[in-house]
């Protein structure tokens, strides 16, 4: 974690600016520019890309596939690839595909920037921005338990295969049944944990009063205001530029 810490709300502002800019900008060079910028910002915040890419390999492949699908069959005069008298990839299509891919990567990169903050602080930041506490709290509980359920799903998968079931060889008709089997222990675990958790929370007076006090209070400092203002202004200028400038 960087020593000069920024308030999580400043990161939220940066992330929102990046995401908005990349979705709104139409010019391919501007889109690529934001891609590069978000990558650099994420690195600056200490995001470990190598580890992330390894873990989310499959998602990146999926994004590539989606972008590829986006790029084909788009009508345009400038045809790049033609197969059996069908216009497969046009210049417009290729540009669209690239833009889609970069946009999705920027969203992922933004999410990774948010992981550099302790999620209690993010929740507190949202609450101080007047997001209802219950909503923010539920999101944070979900975040806490997601890795646990991912682990349980993995165990469930292991246990199912140890019963002699080769998942690659299940006939298509029975695949749904197998998924139900697979998810049953995990769903049961979710329900059971939810009950114990709600008991533990109630026993600690959750919801006793209409409002609650927070021990953790976030204070925006001068640098936060500077970062937030700069981000908003830069993005606004960038977006305007992408519409106004030719090419």
């Amino acid at each position, binding site marked *: 974690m960087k020593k000069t810490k920024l308030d999580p709300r400043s990161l939220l502002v940066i992330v929102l600016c990046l995401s908005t800019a990349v979705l709104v900008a139409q010019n391919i060079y501007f889109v690529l520019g934001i891609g590069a910028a978000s990558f650099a910002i994420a690195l600056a915040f200490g995001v470990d890309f190598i580890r992330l890419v390894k873990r989310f390999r499959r998602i990146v492949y999926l994004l590539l596939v989606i972008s590829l699908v986006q790029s084909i069959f788009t009508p345009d005069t400038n045809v790049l690839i033609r197969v059996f008298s069908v216009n497969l990839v046009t210049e417009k299509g290729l540009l669209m595909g690239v833009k889609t891919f970069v946009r999705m990567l920027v969203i992922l990169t933004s999410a990774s920037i948010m992981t550099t903050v302790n999620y*209690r602080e993010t929740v507190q930041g949202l609450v101080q921005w007047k997001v209802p506490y219950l909503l923010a709290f539920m999101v944070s509980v979900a975040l806490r338990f997601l890795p646990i359920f991912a682990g349980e799903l993995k165990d469930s998968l292991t246990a199912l295969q140890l019963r002699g079931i080769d998942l690659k060889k299940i006939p298509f008709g029975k695949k749904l049944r197998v998924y139900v089997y697979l998810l049953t222990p995990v769903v049961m675990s979710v329900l059971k944990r939810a009950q114990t*958790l709600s008991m533990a929370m109630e026993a600690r007076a959750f919801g*006793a009063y209409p409002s*609650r006090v927070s*021990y953790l209070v976030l204070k925006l400092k001068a640098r936060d205001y500077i970062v937030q203002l700069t981000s908003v202004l830069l993005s606004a200028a960038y977006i305007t530029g992408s519409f106004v400038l030719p090419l």
Partner: protein
Amino acid sequence: MTAEQTTCPVEVENLYFRYAGAEKNVLNGVSLRVSEGEVLAIAGLSGSGKSTLCYCIAGLAPRLVKGRIKGAVRIFSEDVSELKTAEVATRLGIVFQEPDDQLFSPTIEDEVAFGPENLCLPREEIGRRIGEALESVGMAEYRMGNPENLSGGQKQLIALASVLSMRPRILIFDETMSQIDRTGKKRIKDMINKLRAEGKTILMVEHDFDNMDVADRILVMRGGKLHPYDGAL
């Protein structure tokens, strides 16, 4: 002298409980009186209703744990069903069996702060209570750490600290030692002894007799009723 000072911490009179959708009662006329400063162990086979009794005493059943209840449960002479959430939480604390199901905050400080925050205490008071509770369980140095990196026994100590920060006078340990190793068990037992010395009333539910040597009295749950301990479950 206030009502709290002269009365019995936990009183159960002829308690019956049946889970929603169940055919039989799990509690069949349970009666119990726990004295102030006493450590009472309730033993019994799995499924005998020991935890259900705890939920009833803590007011969690039938409020969160659905079912039909009959009979009286009083803490410090007040009927639990008539106490508000905050009132129960400041009189009675409960530590459950599974450490991972009671800890949900990213840092230990947040976890221990949770209860007092819900009570809308002033922030300085909350800070004081966090320090006290962590000192009490011997985990003060872990204050800013992540609960996920702790051992099972340490997690249960944090769960205990999160409950102690509400300053309850009654504590229930619902099979708290069953999922942790020998070192962890010893630390919990040491805590129980310490809390007894501080005048707290403790109810511990167990099925492992090795864990019950800290108790002043042992009762056995059998057939939905409590019996004095005669050497067998």
